[in-house]
């Protein structure tokens, strides 16, 4: 039984904030196959292409047949927790602060033995399911969960260390005027966030959905204009020390490519709202978040970027927009490296055309804002780094993996 998490008390401003430490995050290049799987919430291990042996730890030759063909593939995550121990004395500063810490050896049904972190409800001799997660250093680790869900299981301290669960955390949604922003506010409130700050530029200007937004529990409207450095800085000065999750819902979608478009006005606006907006946000909130990565139950935990899937492959129908999104994706990669020392994850959410007025001419399937919000909450609860939402995004991901050049030609015709 997992003890349900207690709502954290108000922080004593005179007390020292515990600084974030990282567990050892070095991995061999081969082991980064696990990183790729963990980033997407998949459980994939090396499977020998010649003899079918499932391998762990990662290797460069199959111990059964010496084949070098060892691709990562999704495998059955079920197994038995053969034996466990509770580490009470650790050599590593990160774990020293977190002992007692349970680890054990899992015999996977698929074959290999895994040394794994243990969820509190995983018992010796019992059935478990293994999941790959990214730890606070961004490196992949295995955790053994009870085979079936148990009450309050997300509150387990060893599991919560690997996730970005919004429960009891304080969230900033940067733009509440959009349908996505409003759906996000509702979803975070329902997920147990303790405060949902929702940014609104020019709050005196009414907008559709305003009353419903104000009616959501624990929503607090704050003035925020991502195109205005002063506005962003001011909000960070007031609330930067109590924002644990940032969700950038700033949108700027205009159809059209590059050659047919006259002038740069729209392109500038796009970049100002999306790319420079992201930079302003990261510069204002990033330092405090990075310093607060181990600040108790409501530690800073995630920076969420909503990105068009066309950041990965340009769609000339929305060609300029795609390019701006690509800039944001590149910035997010930089941000990921910069926030990692604080144990703060950067979640990139790739989605296809939204069910909004700016994609009016685009045929379905489209992504409903509520679907996008649900995907963000799920991804944070799992602690993953990259998530693809909707059929178009999944389609692009699959085609990119097979033949990026074919995708480029097909998107452009």
């Amino acid at each position, binding site marked *: 039984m997992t003890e349900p998490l207690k709502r954290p008390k108000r922080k004593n401003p005179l007390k020292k904030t515990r600084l974030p430490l990282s567990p050892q995050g070095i991995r061999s290049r081969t082991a980064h196959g696990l990183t790729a799987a963990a980033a997407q919430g998949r459980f994939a291990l090396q499977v020998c292409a010649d003899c079918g042996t499932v391998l762990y730890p990662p290797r460069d030759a199959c111990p059964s047949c010496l084949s070098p063909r060892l691709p990562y593939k999704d495998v059955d995550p079920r197994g038995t927790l053969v034996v466990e121990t*509770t580490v009470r004395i650790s050599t590593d500063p990160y774990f020293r602060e977190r002992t007692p810490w349970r680890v054990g050896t899992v015999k996977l049904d698929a074959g290999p033995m895994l040394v794994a972190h243990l969820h509190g409800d995983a018992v010796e001799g019992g059935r478990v399911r293994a999941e790959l997660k990214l730890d606070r250093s961004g490196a992949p680790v295995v955790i053994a969960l009870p085979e079936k869900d148990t009450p309050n299981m997300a509150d387990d301290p060893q599991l919560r260390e690997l996730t970005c669960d919004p429960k009891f955390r304080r969230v900033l949604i940067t733009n509440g005027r959009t349908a996505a922003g409003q759906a996000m506010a509702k979803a975070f409130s329902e997920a147990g966030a303790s405060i949902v700050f929702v940014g609104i530029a020019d709050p005196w200007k009414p907008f559709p959905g305003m009353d419903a937004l104000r009616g959501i529990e624990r929503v607090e409207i704050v003035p925020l204009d991502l195109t205005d450095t002063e506005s962003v800085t001011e909000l960070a000065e007031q609330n930067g020390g109590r924002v644990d999750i940032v969700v950038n819902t700033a949108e700027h979608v205009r159809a059209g490519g590059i050659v047919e478009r006259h002038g740069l006005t729209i392109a500038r606006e796009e970049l100002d709202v999306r790319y420079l907006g992201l930079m302003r946000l990261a510069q204002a909130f990033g330092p405090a978040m990075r310093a607060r990565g181990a600040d108790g139950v409501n530690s800073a935990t995630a920076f969420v970027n909503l990105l068009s899937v066309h950041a990965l492959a340009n769609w000339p129908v929305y060609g300029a927009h795609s390019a701006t999104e690509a800039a944001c994706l590149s910035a997010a990669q930089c941000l990921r490296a910069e926030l990692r020392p604080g144990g703060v994850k950067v979640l990139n959410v790739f989605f296809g055309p939204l069910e909004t007025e700016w994609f009016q001419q685009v045929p379905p399937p489209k992504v409903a804002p509520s679907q996008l919000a649900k995907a963000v909450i799920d991804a944070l609860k799992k602690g993953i780094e990259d998530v693809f939402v909707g059929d178009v995004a999944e389609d692009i991901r699959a085609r990119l993996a097979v033949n990026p050049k074919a995708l480029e030609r097909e998107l452009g015709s």
Partner: protein
Amino acid sequence: MGGSSERKSYDGVVACVPVTIPYRRYSTNGAHWWIGQALHTLTKRAGLRAKDIDGFSLASFTAGPDTAIGLTQHFGLSPRWLDHVPLGGASGVVALRRAARAVQAGDADFVACVGADTNQVDSFRRMLSTFSRFAQDAVYPYGSGGPNASFALITKNYMNTYGARREDFGKICVAQRDNANTFPYALMKKKLTLDDYMSARAISDPIHLFDCVMPCAGAEAFLVCREASAKSLGLPAVRLLSTIERHNAFPEDPIQIRGGWAADVDDLWAMAGVGPSDVDFVETYDDYPVISMLQFEDLGFCKKGEGPDFVRSHTLTNDGSFPHNTSGGQLSVGQAGAAGGHLGLVEAMRQLTGTALGSPVHDAEIGLVSGFGMINYDRGLASGAAVLARAA
């Protein structure tokens, strides 16, 4: 497993000049200093000059970036036979058997075998995180308990499987402490009672404080040469009746319940021409008492799973029915890195040549030494053993 062809004897080859450079908890000196001290003492006691040493075998974790070759220049050696044995707790036995073959074949006349490591503040932690690729990728990030956590899993599984109790492991540790109390170089000499053992703080369940070895700095060394050479130099020596080594044995065992000895134990006794009941003392590799218990079983002193009963029915002190780890072993002397893999061997040489520094085993003529090492992922990979006898 077992050997497929007949093993040749080590007739005419001996090991002599057991050297220990007294251990220290921490050392400000590097591994090179410890290795140098060992060579210095070894040559002096053997009555040899450095240039007489034409074979050099080194085991060390902390000599980096150097390996044995770089150290030849460092120490002014010009050997015609050189070996680096990165096998941790199995390095002593493996160094011995390789050196013996070199001498037997005429590739070298005097092989100096040295196991030495330094221990500096924080060097142990740094070694753990990069001990092996598997440790880096798949063990150290899990609580960073180091070998304590890995052996905790092995110990717990053994207890679950064969009904061993903490008291059984305690008996091994307490007896070794008794043995250590007369051994001048033991770092831990405070009398240990079973109550002390049982009530010690938990480190990684079921491993408690006195199950753990203490990392320290130190060196062990010995010389391998022809029996005739030892005689002419007036050096008391031991003969090698048989040796085995085996690595990554039984990978199909989900958790380690036996070591590589089990694969070759029949060869070991057949080649020696004696049996387990003929040995006068046993030096096991004891980083965690469960591993000593595995060795009692896998080396033929009792059957698999009978380790706990075997321990309960014997006294393990030097004056007991089964003298075990007669200098106190690593559990009481300390674990000086790769020197730990030589500790039992060097002590066995002393017991068999009547030069014990602590309390002697009465009339010791045959001794068994075994080694075990390298927790690469979830189990120790390297194992070896040697049956030694007092030279006539």
